[in-house]
């Protein structure tokens, strides 16, 4: 086992904790989710060998329905395509997850790729979160159309993203709704600039890097 290696976020240096933008109560909190294990899994949803193997390793049923997720045991599986998913785990070693999935799948026709370091995950939380994303994303993020647990891939500020509706919360909750935005690492800073600039009119807090 290698020692814990220094990992650097694409937002390092840009993500500066504090409160910014218009005065009054900030309508938003922006933060980065770090150290997630993210594994891309491709396979045939109609093949029990495939679905069983994924269930065996993750304890979750693959979400077969488009734009949905399955969550439990600190893990989430997000639907990407009829034959593709992202398995996201907090506090797990990505290499172990990748190897574990590959081993579980054995000779089943499937593809497993650790993509943990190719994605940056920005959490946008607060009452104005959907309004902020609506500045550059054509998805309908209204709670009726995009409830808790929904996910969708789209374009935000001309950058491909995956939006995960983590929690729409109850009315009045200060942190709800919570939306996670997955973006390719290389675009992360560009997207961060777009989001922080657009959040100015709502007032926003950046919570520190964990």
């Amino acid at each position, binding site marked *: 086992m290698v020692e814990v290696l220094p990992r650097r976020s694409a937002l390092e240096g840009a993500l500066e904790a504090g409160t910014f933008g218009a005065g009054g109560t900030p309508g938003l909190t922006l933060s980065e989710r770090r150290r997630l294990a993210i594994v891309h899994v491709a396979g045939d949803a109609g093949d029990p060998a495939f679905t069983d193997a994924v269930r065996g390793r993750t304890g979750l049923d693959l979400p077969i329905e*488009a*734009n949905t997720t399955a969550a439990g045991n600190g893990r989430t599986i997000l639907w*990407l*395509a*009829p034959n*593709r998913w992202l398995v996201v785990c907090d506090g797990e070693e990505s290499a172990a997850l990748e190897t574990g999935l590959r081993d579980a799948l054995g000779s089943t026709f499937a593809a497993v790729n650790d993509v943990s370091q190719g994605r940056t995950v920005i959490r946008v939380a607060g009452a104005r979160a959907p309004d902020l994303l609506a500045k550059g994303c*054509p*998805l309908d993020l209204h709670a009726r159309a995009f409830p808790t647990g929904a996910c*969708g*891939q*789209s*374009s935000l500020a001309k950058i*491909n993203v995956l939006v995960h509706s983590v929690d729409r919360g109850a009315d009045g909750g200060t942190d709800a709704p919570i939306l996670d935005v997955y973006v390719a690492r290389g675009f992360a800073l560009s997207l961060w600039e777009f989001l922080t600039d657009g959040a100015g009119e709502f007032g926003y807090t950046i919570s520190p890097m964990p």
Partner: protein
Amino acid sequence: MHLIKCPWCGERAEMEFTYGGDGTLTRPADPEAASDAEWTDYVYFRDNPRGPHEELWQHASGCRRWIKVRRNTLTHEILATGPADRPLEGNAS
């Protein structure tokens, strides 16, 4: 901006898609056996209809599936959509 129904993701904005042109083209199964005329027809010649047009789009910012879309080129109405690897349902007109 068009609203295109991805067979999987549902109705999505056109900006999530890239256009792939005529969806009725089939690459000759045996290129060696195809005549030059057949080959030229496949690579270059198009029906280019006024009215319903069967075409390919890729849901590039979404699920990345190539899909078939029947769209009216006079009115931009989307008449049907479906997966790319099988015929679209409904008639061409």
